[in-house]
């Protein structure tokens, strides 16, 4: 029953798996993001208050969701590497960090572009915005800690530990709009009960969320291949894989 888990610890298997999965992730991401963009930007009705400006939600909300999702994935992958000494866990964490940082930056930039017409300002020192900014700094800290060590194995473990410590920030980001008075609107989709959105607006958003997650899967598979090759560059199977 556990053989599939053990096989994930073997670099050649992970390399092959990532190579096989990448096109599937990429294709399904193209379909879901394509549907989400067309349905969200063209067919969804304009918001009764915000008009057409609300449509940036189709990039902003999925980007923000990915920023915390990837951080959690990175921390769990790092923990797996730390606890069971599985090197591929560290490889996944190392490959994920720059992707997560990019999505965090995307969420911050689209959020401030959205804030300008709605709140009258690009930036407010508001709990949701500040905690998202802290997340960006945490990504930066994890990435620079990993590269600061001469011994890559040690850098991996140090970065994994910092990632786990930084995980306390994730629930703070999620609940910041509930715990404090915030300019940012409260959750409309990720909550118990019925979402506060009609289906014609909601379905494209959910499709974009799924699409961004699949896109992360695709980019992760591609980066993971490079990461594994770089880490295993002394191994015999790498030479054979490159030659063939």
């Amino acid at each position, binding site marked *: 029953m556990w053989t599939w888990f053990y096989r994930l610890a073997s670099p050649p298997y992970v390399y092959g798996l990532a190579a096989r999965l990448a096109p599937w992730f990429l294709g399904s991401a193209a379909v879901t993001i394509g549907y989400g963009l067309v349905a969200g930007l063209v067919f969804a009705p304009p918001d009764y208050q915000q008009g057409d400006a609300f449509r940036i939600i189709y990039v902003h909300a999925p980007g923000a969701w990915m920023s915390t999702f990837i951080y959690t994935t990175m921390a769990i992958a790092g923990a797996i590497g730390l606890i069971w000494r599985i090197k591929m866990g560290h490889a996944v964490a190392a490959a994920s960090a720059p992707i997560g940082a990019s999505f965090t930056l995307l969420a911050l930039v689209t959020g401030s572009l959205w804030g300008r017409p709605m709140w009258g300002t690009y930036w407010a020192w508001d709990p949701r915005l500040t905690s998202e900014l802290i997340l960006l700094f*945490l990504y930066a*800290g994890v990435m*620079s*800690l990993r590269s600061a060590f001469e011994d890559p194995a*040690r850098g991996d*473990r*140090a970065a994994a530990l*910092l990632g786990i410590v*930084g995980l306390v920030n994730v629930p703070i980001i999620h609940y910041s709009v509930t715990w404090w008075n915030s300019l940012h609107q409260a959750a409309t989709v990720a909550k118990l009960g019925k979402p506060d959105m009609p289906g014609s607006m909601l379905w494209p958003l959910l499709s974009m969320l799924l699409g961004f997650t699949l896109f992360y899967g695709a980019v992760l598979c591609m980066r993971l291949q490079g990461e594994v090759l770089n880490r295993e560059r002394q191994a015999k199977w790498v030479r054979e894989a490159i030659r063939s």
Partner: protein
Amino acid sequence: MNVGLWEAFGLIVRRELCLSFRRPDQLSQPLVFFLIVTTLFPLGLNLQLSLLRDMAPGVLWVAALLSSLLSLDSLFKSDADDGTLEQLALSGQGLNVIVVAKTFAHWLVSGAALVVVSPVVGTALGIPVGAFATMMLSLALGTLTLSWLGAIGAGLTVGLKRGNVLLSLIVLPLAMPLLIFGAGATDRAMSGTSAAGALYFLAALCVFTCTLAPFAATAALRITLE
């Protein structure tokens, strides 16, 4: 020879304090830095006292965070460089108790000292005497939390040659909530409203880090020492 847990804790704290007081200049440098940074703000901004008073809690807290960071680098560094830390780790006592004792001793000579001098700085920045109790309590809770967060950062960067900047990069994002609630508590006490909410939050953060951060800091040291 068998040494009990508390005895080991006491011995390490005493050793750390003894080492600090043998080098009084190292002890006073972060405090002088704290005073100088708080002096820079009124000089640079050329403010009236009323405006300065509005900014005072933030200025005080930023200066406190920076000067605590300054001394964090030396938390494990000198002991790791000359091999004392490895000897302590091999002594049969858990690494946990060593980390806790060293961090606590570090807080006594950095954080607690900051709390003691803070009324002087507070007066210079125009904080009313009535807010001193809240200011000092919030600083005490905040610097203790920061020492724990800093122990994690110092443990992670102890093996690095130029770990100082990286240490700040790691610790400062985690310390931002402290700044928000610490400055918030002082601000509320100055305006005469109840600061209890922010103080409770600081106390909760302090308990949270006191209980969990020692394990993280020990794990960090294990990774970098090996």
